[in-house]
């Protein structure tokens, strides 16, 4: 079966600078570089990485929300027309900031009817109530405006709005950022229930590794706009190959004081995209850097269900 979404060698850039930059040929800043992956129907994939790693830019490019895109995106086997109208029905986006993504002037009812009006679809009677029920909100909420909602409620309205036109792919940008653990569970359970019930594919952007471990089938770790490691979630957690993955996993605050001792620290901060490091782009922060890493970019390697780009991958740790 063809994957629902298939991305090949995707580059995303943004125009920068003025005339001088243009003359120097440096008027584009490459945010996402050479990303390839497939997403199957009903599958959940998590994009993980630090701020500035290009997670959101990649997701927005797939949803046709900006950036200068080159490479290939196929949706359901056909090239994706990112400027067309159909894409807005097939791919829904749940924005990071739930409250500010909803117009403060509209009631929840108007917000949920808006997608139908925009696409010229006859509004099915009672659909607002059905959507609210779907996301577990009381019907009375329909007459409220966004500022009268709690963070969790606004998030659910965002989910309801994303689902209004029955999309096949839902992209959720930090769907649980700033939520308390109990509400976080509710939002994630909701997305997961809808995935199984409606057969959706989910692409979840997050930097919360605790939730990735529970809800994602596969994960991709991004650094400076590239996938440095991708694979099935459990094997990546059990044996990270790329030192960056290992560092991210070990930076997760943990309850058990014993487990803290093996923490892996990174040097410095994320380098700027304007001057990408030569060789392996991670070498400037890698605790295990060697001469080869400074000169030669590593190629993609595979180890069972995991692929990664590193010259000197981490060994499987004993306590994993």
């Amino acid at each position, binding site marked *: 079966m063809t994957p629902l979404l298939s991305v090949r060698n995707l580059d995303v850039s943004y125009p920068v600078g003025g005339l001088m930059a243009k003359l120097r040929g440096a008027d584009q800043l490459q945010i996402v570089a050479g990303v390839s992956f497939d997403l199957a129907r009903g599958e959940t994939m998590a994009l993980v990485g630090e701020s500035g790693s290009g997670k959101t830019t990649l997701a927005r490019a797939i949803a046709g929300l900006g950036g200068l895109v080159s490479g290939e995106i196929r949706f359901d086997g056909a090239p994706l027309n990112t400027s067309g109208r159909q894409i807005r029905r097939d791919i829904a986006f749940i924005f990071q900031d739930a409250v500010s993504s909803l117009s403060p002037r509209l009631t929840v009812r108007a917000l949920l009817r808006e997608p139908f009006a925009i696409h010229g679809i006859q509004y099915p009677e009672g659909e607002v109530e059905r959507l609210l029920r779907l996301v577990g909100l009381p019907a009375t909420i329909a007459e409220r405006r966004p500022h009268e909602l709690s963070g969790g409620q606004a998030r659910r309205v965002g989910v309801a709005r994303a689902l209004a036109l029955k999309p096949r792919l839902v992209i959720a940008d930090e769907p649980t950022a700033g939520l308390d653990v*109990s509400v976080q569970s*509710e939002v994630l359970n909701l997305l997961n229930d809808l995935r199984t019930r409606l057969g959706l594919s989910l692409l979840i952007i997050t930097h919360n590794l*605790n939730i990735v*471990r529970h809800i994602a089938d596969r994960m991709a770790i991004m650094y400076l706009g590239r996938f440095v490691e991708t694979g099935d979630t459990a094997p990546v957690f059990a044996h990270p190959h790329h030192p960056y993955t290992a560092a991210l996993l070990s930076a997760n*605050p943990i*309850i058990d*004081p014993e487990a803290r001792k093996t923490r892996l*620290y990174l040097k410095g901060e994320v380098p700027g995209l304007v001057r990408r490091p030569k060789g392996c782009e991670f070498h400037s922060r890698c605790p295990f850097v060697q001469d080869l890493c400074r000169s030669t970019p590593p190629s993609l390697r595979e180890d069972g269900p995991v692929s990664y780009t590193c010259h000197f991958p981490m060994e499987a740790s004993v306590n994993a």
Partner: protein
Amino acid sequence: MSLDASDPVLTVSGLTLSYDIPAGELKALRDVNLSIGKGEIVGLVGESGSGKSTLMQAILGLLPGAAQIRSGSIRFEGQDLTGLSARQMRGLLGDRISVVFQDPMTALNPVLTIGRQMIDIQHRSKLSRREKRARAIEMLARVRIPDPESRIDRYPHEFSGGMRQRVAIAMALMAKPALLVADEPTTALDATLEIATIDLLRELQSEIGCAVLFITHHLGVVAELCDRIDIMYAGEIVESGATGAVFQDPRHPYTQLLFGCDPAQIAEPMRHLPSIGGNLPDLTAPLPGCIFASRCPRADETCTTGHPADHKAGQSDLVRCHYPLAPRLEISA
């Protein structure tokens, strides 16, 4: 850290506070007891709406006009902060008590250089301007800002988020306060930076010896950093104790359920995550019984009619529950 619990830096006792709102009186804090020993790091945990920020504002004297302290006291180094004038409070803030806020971008003034702000904050000191600048550079070096001599003349936007938060920490600790209040200082940071910031905070704290009130909803951070943990729910502190002990054997049903739905504490991957269910109670008209009764699976008539007292139970110092010794609740997905 050795703790001198007999002589706490800060003691909040019986603090009850409400907001006047059009619908009546919102009872935001009810009979809150909290104590922070010298050099102790205390984590204050609670979901949004639990009153963490109100409690912080009450301690710092930053309450909005609609807030009324009904009863109770906040004693800091022997004086009651609730009775201080704005002027007296200003004398304490930035000197004996300082704060690190959540968002390092808005905490720093964007139109002044870091150096100017770090010199300004020393306005109480008798040092010369040159000496103040030298102290600022030294402090920047201590929070590991590379090349502090030239960085000090830069503006906040020229620093990354993690560096800005480190500058804010440097400024807060400049006057060697007795108490540092940190309001979710790592929430806006990535995991790798979060850990680095926590390590830095712990290191500086042990050098300076100040007490820290660390407000967060990230349980992992509390486990890593804090000596003690206080858990707030709907305006009350429901459990308090040494961090390790509370994580190992929580005694309040809310704490038990909260830990139960923290994905970090669930070992086996599960698709469907547990949640507590229900919503925060209406604080304009709280029921006479236990504040958690409406969501507690164990609640009986005692719980819905009588307000529980604070008990010592297990290894926890305070458990506000009628049945603090009942077996631990399991939460199902």
